[in-house]
């Protein structure tokens, strides 16, 4: 059996709206989505904006970076520095949280977020 997944791409913003090597938040379909412009690596990521630790809408204001031999991309919440993988959404600082991640597509200077 083939599982069919339909992803809808939503226009979030223009590429210059997200600062290089940082993030910003967009409101899409009523959800707060944190979008990260990982300019050093030419990569884009998106996650939920809510930090699950203290339920604060803050991840888009966090610092991004990488960790480990595989250079796992990550974001640190500005409140208590809980860190999360931008790829898997897993918490990297020892807690059991997992945050939602979204696919990102950049076309003609515009940033699109994929939602199921």
């Amino acid at each position, binding site marked *: 059996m083939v599982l069919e997944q339909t992803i809808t791409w939503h226009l979030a913003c223009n590429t210059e709206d997200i600062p290089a090597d940082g*993030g910003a938040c967009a*409101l899409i379909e009523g959800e707060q989505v944190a979008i990260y412009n990982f300019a050093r690596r030419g990569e884009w990521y998106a996650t939920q904006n809510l930090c699950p630790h203290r339920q604060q809408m803050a991840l888009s204001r966090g610092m991004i970076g990488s*960790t480990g031999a595989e250079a796992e991309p990550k974001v640190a919440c500005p409140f208590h520095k809980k860190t999360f993988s931008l790829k898997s959404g897993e918490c990297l600082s020892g807690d059991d949280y997992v945050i939602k991640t979204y696919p990102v597509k950049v076309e003609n200077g515009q940033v699109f977020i994929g939602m199921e």
Partner: protein
Amino acid sequence: MKKKIVVVGNGMVGYKFCEKLIAKDIAKNFEIIVFGEEIRPAYDRVHLSEYFAGKTVEDLTMAPSSWYAENNINLILSDPIVDIDRDAKTVRSHHGIVEGYDYLVMATGSGAFVPPIPGVEKDGVFVYRTIEDLDLMQNHAKKATKGAVIGGGLLGLEAAKALLDLGLKEVHVIEFASRLMPRQIDEAGSRVLQTKLETLGLQIHLNKNTQEIVGDGIIEAMQFADGSRLDVDMLVISAGIKPRDEVARVAGLEVGIRGGIVVDNALQTSDPNIFAIGECALAHHMIYGLVAPGYEMAEVVATKIVGGEKEFMPFDMSTKLKLIGVDVASFGDAFIEEPNAQTIVFENSAKGIYKRINISNDGKYLLGGVLVGDAEQYNMLLQNTKNKTILPPDPEDLMLGARGGSEGGASGVMALPDEALICSCEAVTKGAICHEIVENKVTTLDGIKKCTKAGTGCGGCVPMVKDLINETMKSQGVFVRNILCEHFDYTRQELFDLVKIKGYKTYNEVLDNLGKGDGCEVCKPAVASIIASLWNEMILEKGNATVQDSNDRFLANIQKNGTYSVVPRIPGGEITPEKLIVIGQVALKYNLYTKITGGQRIDLFGAHVSDLPEIWEELVNAGFESGHAYGKSLRTVKSCVGSTWCRFGVQDAVSFAIEVEERYRGLRSPHKLKSAVSGCTRECAEAQSKDFGIIATEKGWNLYVCGNGGVKPRHAELLATDIDSETCLKYIDRFLMFYIKTAEPLTRTAPWLDKMEGGINYLKSVVIDDVLGMGETWDAEMNLLVEAYKCEWKEVVDNPELRKRFTHFVNAPKVKDPNAKFEPMREMVKAAEWK
């Protein structure tokens, strides 16, 4: 079928039993039902007096009701067990609930022993056991001025402390015996403790036998057997404890002559299906009135019930506590004396310190001792006693600390055997802690607390745990160099020099040339701070905005609900009425909560990120500038009003504070910097608690450095005396440049000085005598930084591109974060409580 365990009593030990049983009952074979007499779940009775010092019931609660629910424990409160039917194996509660059991665990604790003195029933006479007792005392204390406590033991002195905390003007301690704390400390120690407590405001009466409590319905005075009388309007009876064995007694269980449910080494009562633990149990012919043996009893019974083997052995009753700020400790055999042992005694009555150790006649082993006034060596002495460590040739060093020798205190920790019990509340050995450090790489105190529970009880072993972590890591060769993080193989100081020599001005330049990977939340702000300290350029330009911590990125302090606070600079705390009005108008317009800060300025809370540029536009137009409350930089220079108005002032403190604040405003440093200027020696500006503090003298200024409020308060040390304003600024310039260049990230000046070889004398030689020959260079560098200062908020307000970054939603700049919630508080708002 699950086996049913009924726990009678929900105090500290009853709770601990539940916790331990759940941890051991992996197969979930047991069902637990707890009956408690009090209205709330178990709380920390050991720290009960902190209730009056500001702790809340929640702070003291061992675990909230939800914990019991999550672990499937049926917790029934306000409903004590009144009857046990041992044949039917059931219990009946006060409200008539009948519950069957396979095992019954009695954890009923103890009550206050109230001697039969005529008049004890009068109003204003209290016992000191439960939070309800405390609430009653608190109410009564509002109209009381003179209080007394019957009982000069451990609990009595705790109660006396509570009366002091309640604000009573006179507090008396009445003791029947000839000295204080007769069970823990010896005669000489009691004497020193008494003198010390008297200087702290307690009035102590020994050899006093209370004959009657006098008063018409309400206490007015105490009448003693020797004919004397003491007028009081409040009395706490704390003359000892009485095991709560009444239900057990009625059920026919064996009890001791002076009370207590008799148990064997397995803590089984005369009925093998019934156990007793904690202060209601009479084990080895005694009542163990401390929490650590109670926890050990909980461990023994929990182990036994799940099928393991463990016995309760006679328990070490060593204790260390702080009574009204005075350390008191006794360990091992505290009272043994010649000819059975040799004793070494040290007494400094001026300082209120008494120390005694008892050593074996052959001089090899430590047997026990007493410490009053300074118990810093308690942990090591206790370990040496318990582990029968062979003593050094001069055993008094153990009690007095190494004097001038090269031996550090921490090396002692490593000399202990693996089985040494570090945390006696949770029974954690040195070996268990070291295992976590070495094998599982747990190298933080929080980590050790989490995986071993060490340090989570009374907390007394925390310094030892820290030493263990540091010393074990050193012995493993870990962290030999204090490198910044995984992306930079340099210390902050090395990085500072490299960035300066190469002239790098952006984070990416530094990372590309000196580091590896993509950076992280540790190195980004550290490098950003170095760049800012070196060049003092606008921190949001050249792509450096996203390497700042959130507070620096948005030039405001992030608060609990994701909104920010706004702090305009108010140099020296001086402000015109016009500016006060502007602050009020801005706060009204943007619905901000306003509060005077500890640094003599005004904080405006609850600003949405998108409102920040407009708020600041209004403030900047009115002549305000950024207060840098968000930055690792100079915060405020507090001042007292000084000689311009004050009749005591000898110098113009406000004018000098303004000059100092305006000189160093915006200066980025490894951590925040605070300062103050006092106009005379009365020190109203509290300059001696600041990173650099200035106190006026008849001839000029005294300059103090490296003080700290914060987590670990520290008095500042005197750097220079009677200097003029110009010299004072020059010394501060050099002091700050030396600090900025050499301190580790996020290290305040106080710990920086603590780690400096040679301490304050070396610092003086660098700043005043210029032994490094850097003086002129630093003077010039500081002048450049001072000249380069610009208000960061003015630059944002004037720059449309920077302003655009201050939105919550990039695709809906006008929409505010709907999750930023507020709750009303008095006439203003506060951030909604987080979960």
